């Protein structure tokens, strides 16, 4: 075995989960190789657009027809413009097949989507972990809140998050910096909710954005241009937080442009001994070896690697004795909500661009099932005073028009629900070897649809949003309930789920592949259900927990 290619641990992927595996494994003493399929992207110095003014960006920040042709999927994302387009893949160079419409938004570079994420960080509760068991849906989570609570705290203390604890059992309190201030309209909505509802409240979202200095980072400078990369390190990203911590140990080797083809399984040892890597530029294959392997390549990325890791022992993909690998794909759905305006409080304004939202925690089906669907949803709530864009839809022009639209307009509110999606066996991914990608790798095929439970939930999401805005005296309230294309919320979950029984799951309660215990999968692919809340904090906590467990078992000679 060539010594130069041998490490204690290999981590595949450098994003949200991979960064945490790198930090925890190196800090616990392991020489760790992190493989990233995309290019290197250095913190701060490679954030080329971070401080550019609108007039300094090409085409005043408008995407061109050429951009859209190269990135027909990525360019439909709300974040996509001239200041961020280089953080998203070229769709033509990174093909996948949509057996059903599916938006796969991603960036191949060091840091992955931790660079462009929306930064909400909520904990799951036992309402979530017990839901499958209680309803007989899917399989039971092999863990409960108590297993994860210390790891949530561990992660929160390190990443630094701000926001407001709701004091609700279904949304456990967190370690948070003080929240960013609400504006006058939000304060009004909050007080109306308090007067009108016993089960609903408006809070400032728990967000991985610093309202105070934290370990030499931040605080937030109020730019709200996070997806360009933050030169102030004020939001959490792998690039700015976990990878530097891993590098500081002297035990990190970070290798970009390294596409993992498959895991190498040794029949005689009954374990994975390493990974086969394609150089992104030369396409040459190199093998790397380690005692423990963490797959953190994103939900679809990790599952694609497992499916492509075929051997006589695992003809259908590594760890796929159960046959469930690739199945039970989930995403949230956010098609239901409402908009409105408010002409009072015209003498109040704000300064700076807050990069967080307001949040209404889940209130449906909490104490008992009360509706014609199971599970629930929370809302993200965005408010502002209208700006010049209100002039776009009118016939107006001229001096009076200009004077009007350059002044702050009415308050406006936009709220959309984020609903849980149930795990369905036939929402799934598989490999198509007949359509290789530019590296000769089989492309991924995705087939996912929302079902009756999600549709009924979405109707109620709209109805509740309208009811709440009307209760807050909001004017011009208009509800919406539109179809969400799966993938669009960018919360892909499942396809290599955890479970108690190797016959029905890929991973155990420590994120270990049941049949190959030195392989851990800790990104969103491990999810057993898709609770209401944004999932990244849970991936980080699961990764930290699994890393500590792996090192402990290695130390005892049990791995």
């Amino acid at each position, binding site marked *: 075995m060539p010594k130069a290619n041998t490490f204690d641990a290999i981590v595949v992927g450098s994003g949200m989960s991979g960064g945490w595996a790198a930090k925890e494994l190196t800090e616990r003493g392991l020489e760790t190789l992190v493989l990233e399929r995309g290019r290197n992207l250095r913190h701060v110095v490679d954030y080329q657009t971070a401080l550019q*003014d609108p*007039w300094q960006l090409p085409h005043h920040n408008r*995407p061109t027809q050429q951009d859209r042709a190269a990135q027909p999927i990525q360019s439909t994302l709300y974040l996509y413009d001239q200041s961020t387009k280089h953080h998203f893949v070229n769709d033509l160079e990174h093909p996948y097949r949509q057996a059903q419409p599916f938006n796969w938004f991603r960036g191949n570079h060091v840091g992955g989507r931790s660079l462009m994420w929306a930064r909400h960080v909520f904990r799951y509760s036992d309402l979530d972990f017990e839901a499958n068991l209680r309803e007989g849906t899917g399989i039971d989570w092999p863990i409960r809140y108590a297993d994860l609570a210390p790891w949530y705290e561990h992660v929160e203390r390190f990443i630094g998050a701000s926001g407001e604890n709701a004091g609700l059992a279904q949304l456990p309190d967190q370690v948070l910096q003080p929240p960013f201030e609400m504006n006058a309209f939000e304060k009004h909505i909050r007080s109306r909710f308090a007067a009108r509802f016993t089960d609903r409240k408006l809070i400032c979202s728990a967000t991985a954005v610093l309202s105070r200095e934290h370990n030499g980072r931040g605080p937030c*400078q109020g730019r709200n241009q996070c997806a360009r990369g933050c030169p102030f390190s004020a939001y959490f990203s792998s690039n700015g937080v976990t990878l530097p911590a891993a590098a500081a140990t002297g035990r990190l080797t970070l290798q970009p442009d390294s596409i993992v083809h498959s895991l190498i399984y040794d029949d005689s040892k009954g374990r994975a001994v390493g990974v086969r890597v394609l150089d992104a530029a030369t396409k040459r294959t190199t093998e790397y070896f380690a005692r423990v392997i963490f797959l953190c390549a994103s939900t679809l990325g990790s599952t694609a690697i497992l499916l492509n890791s075929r051997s006589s022992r695992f003809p259908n993909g590594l760890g796929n004795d159960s046959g469930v690998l690739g199945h039970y794909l989930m995403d949230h759905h956010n098609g239901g909500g409402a908009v409105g305006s408010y002409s009072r409080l015209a003498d109040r304004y704000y300064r*700076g661009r807050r990069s967080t939202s307001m949040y209404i925690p889940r209130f449906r089906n909490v104490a008992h099932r009360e509706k014609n669907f199971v599970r629930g949803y929370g809302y993200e709530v965005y408010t502002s005073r209208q700006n010049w864009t209100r002039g*776009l839809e009118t016939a107006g022009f001229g001096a009076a028009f*200009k004077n009007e639209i*350059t*002044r702050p307009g009415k308050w406006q509110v936009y709220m959309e629900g984020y609903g849980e999606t149930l795990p369905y066996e036939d929402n799934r991914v598989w490999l198509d070897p007949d359509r290789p990608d530019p590296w000769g790798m089989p492309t991924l095929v995705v087939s996912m649809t929302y079902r009756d439970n999600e549709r009924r939930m979405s109707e109620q999401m709209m109805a509740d949003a309208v009811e709440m805005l009307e209760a807050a005296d909001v004017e011009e309230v208009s509800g919406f309930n539109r179809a969400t294309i799966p993938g669009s919320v960018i919360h892909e979950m499942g396809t290599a789920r955890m479970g108690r029984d190797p016959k029905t799951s890929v991973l155990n309660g420590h994120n270990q592949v049941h049949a190959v215990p030195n392989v851990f999968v800790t990104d969103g692919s491990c999810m057993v259900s898709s609770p209401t809340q944004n999932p990244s904090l849970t991936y980080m906590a699961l990764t930290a927990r699994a890393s500590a467990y792996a090192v402990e078992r290695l130390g005892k000679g049990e791995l």
Partner: protein
Amino acid sequence: MINRRYFLQGTSVLMAHASFSRVVATFLASRTAVAASSRAPVFLSAAELGRVAVLVDMILPETDSPAATAAGTHDFVDMALSACASPKQQATFRSGLTALAVDGFDSMSAQDRLVWLQRRAASDVVLSYDESFFKILKDYTLTGYFHSEIGATRALAYERVPGGFQGDIPLAADQKAWVI
């Protein structure tokens, strides 16, 4: 310049945190300025560019802030039509300009031009964006102007690095709306 001043204010907050001020200072020094330059039109003919210049100033004339052409908005419209507009939108815009020329816009009095544009706005505002000469014109005019340095810093209020967030403050009498 007001944006520069605000930027420095934001930076001074940052510099209080010595632990990372050096890396940011290096980063700022490495930024390359993008110089504005005037050039020959790429999508429009010179005559069409002249008509667009008249139109953008009718939409956003000089008030207590400069007119659209002072910010190069007509050049932006030309460039955006070339690079950002779809073929359908380009065709809609081209036929709108043709209709304008046929109507004798070039030789109209200012009052007649105003009537012409009001009529066009009223008939176009109900059309879909792709079919609407006025909506495309207005979109590029407003984007070009309010994302220009003049538009952002003199017609609106702009802070590149606000330095933080104040959620609930009184609205000053002369307060302009923030740039998005």
